[in-house]
């Protein structure tokens, strides 16, 4: 019978007409966001960073700017470089997360926000050192950080992640908590047979 398909289709639309809406009112209500979400404000821990610039090297767009200088502290004893600048230009960032993936010391994390509108392009350049000095709240995403997923950390909960909990292994870095390393005993332990020279 001609028109039966249309009647069947209209029944579907009628059913959908009376069900609850599938959409939400965005600025007031938020869709649930998973903890792995790769978002805008990168969480960076100066305590864990050595200034190796792996993130800058592997960034496909080259938008991470790092300046280091030899720190006045004891380089031969394993102290790291002093960071002069750590800027991320998220105006050109595509949030692929490669910088986070290659960070060998778990110093850089993805964020969880996505509303990155600003009034000027300069405001989109994240000065991570300034954020660190101001003690900005760090809520890193758990993307590529299984240790945070093991802790069941939720970035949007608002609780801050401390730098000594964020790492994949026990790690003590500059500038505050660095222990003195006994280089001589370390050398004797690891290079026993090659010893004398």
């Amino acid at each position, binding site marked *: 019978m*001609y028109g039966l*398909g*249309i009647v069947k*289709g209209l*029944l*579907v639309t009628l059913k959908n007409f009376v069900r609850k809406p*599938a959409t939400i009112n965005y600025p007031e209500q938020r869709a649930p966001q*998973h903890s792995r*979400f790769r978002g805008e404000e990168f969480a960076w821990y100066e305590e864990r960073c050595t200034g190796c610039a792996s993130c800058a090297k592997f960034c496909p767009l080259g938008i991470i700017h790092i300046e280091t200088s030899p720190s006045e502290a004891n380089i031969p004893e394993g102290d790291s470089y002093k960071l002069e600048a750590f800027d991320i230009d998220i105006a050109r960032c595509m949030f*692929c997360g490669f910088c986070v993936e290659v960070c060998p010391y778990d110093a850089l994390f993805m964020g969880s926000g996505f509303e990155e509108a600003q009034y000027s392009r300069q405001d989109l350049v994240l000065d991570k050192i300034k954020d660190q000095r101001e003690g900005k709240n760090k809520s890193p995403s758990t993307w590529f950080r299984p240790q945070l997923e093991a802790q069941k950390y939720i970035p949007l909960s608002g609780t801050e992640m401390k730098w000594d909990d964020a790492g994949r292994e026990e790690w003590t870095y500059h500038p505050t908590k660095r222990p003195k390393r006994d280089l001589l005993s370390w050398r004797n332990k690891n290079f026993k047979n090659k010893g004398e020279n």
Partner: protein
Amino acid sequence: MNSELMTVNFGPQHPSTHGVFRLRITLDGETVVGLEPVFGYLHRGSEKLAEERTFTQVITLTDRMDYTSAMTNNQAYVLSCEKLMEVTPPVRAQYLRVISAELSRIASHLIGTGFLINDLGAFITPLMYCFRERERILELFEMLCGARITLTYMRVGGVFQDTPAEFWPALDSFLTDMEFHLDEYESLLTGNEILLSRTVGVSSITTDQALNASITGPILRATGFDWDLRTVDPYEVYNRVNFEVPTGENGDNYDRYLVRIKEMRQSLSIIKQCVEQIEPGKVRLDLPFLIRPDSGEAYGRVESPKGELGFYLISDGSISPYRCKVRPPSLINLTLLNEMIVGWKVADMIVTLGSLDFNMGEVDR
């Protein structure tokens, strides 16, 4: 005396061209008598950019080619990289890739179906039904890899990380709901007299025409030719799952729509079998981030939702590909536009463009 023909620019800024696609059409009244497609408005030079990036960084470029199914693009690229390096990813990684690629296929076909109906004039209702389910898939992708569209999920030698615990229950509930929703679409659309009268017999092509133009994907299968790389040249774990390759008969717009709906059902069955078969294990080989394959060449191909997607890579032993050539199914599927559209009315042309389900990000690259 002949009446004068009129030449019209259809696009590039037209909602029915699905992107920035321009058609210079010659009209005799309302009938299309000549047609000349113009591409390149979305050209970003991905192939050239790939020569300046390392092998891993190119994965982010592939996300942006066919942005409706980024998983299959990732898969095609990493498969060709793995062929180049002669490594095989762990079995669990292969299962995860197949599951995510099939989810991507469902998402892409939902867009294809929804916009086809939208172009038919059923203003936005079926499209919104399709997008409601696509949203569920995007949420699954967000759980899996932290992004919704530009996924960057796969790596050379596996996937970037194992799944979170809450992924599997969410996937199960999606699979259960999706069967019901597919029935819903079919009762809404399949057999609807308006859809039938607008699409049956319109812009039909024969198998020979399609093969001569090297058309692949649902458009080739709608002509009745059984060609699917997942069965013809099985990659990953497609030889461990059972599924049918749905084909049409006439190669017209209606058959393309039907093939897509049937393929979504097959994809659901593939995902279910994969969920049953998958076992815990490693998901990534211990390859460095900066890979350096030996010099050589490789061609990896997958059955993307649009057709055969291939990446031809040449390596000269350095950290970046010497050449990265893409075989974009969307572009090659557009080669029969003249045979499909000339002779039909303008309204049918729009439906045909919708049923071809091309993606300008992939056509122009």
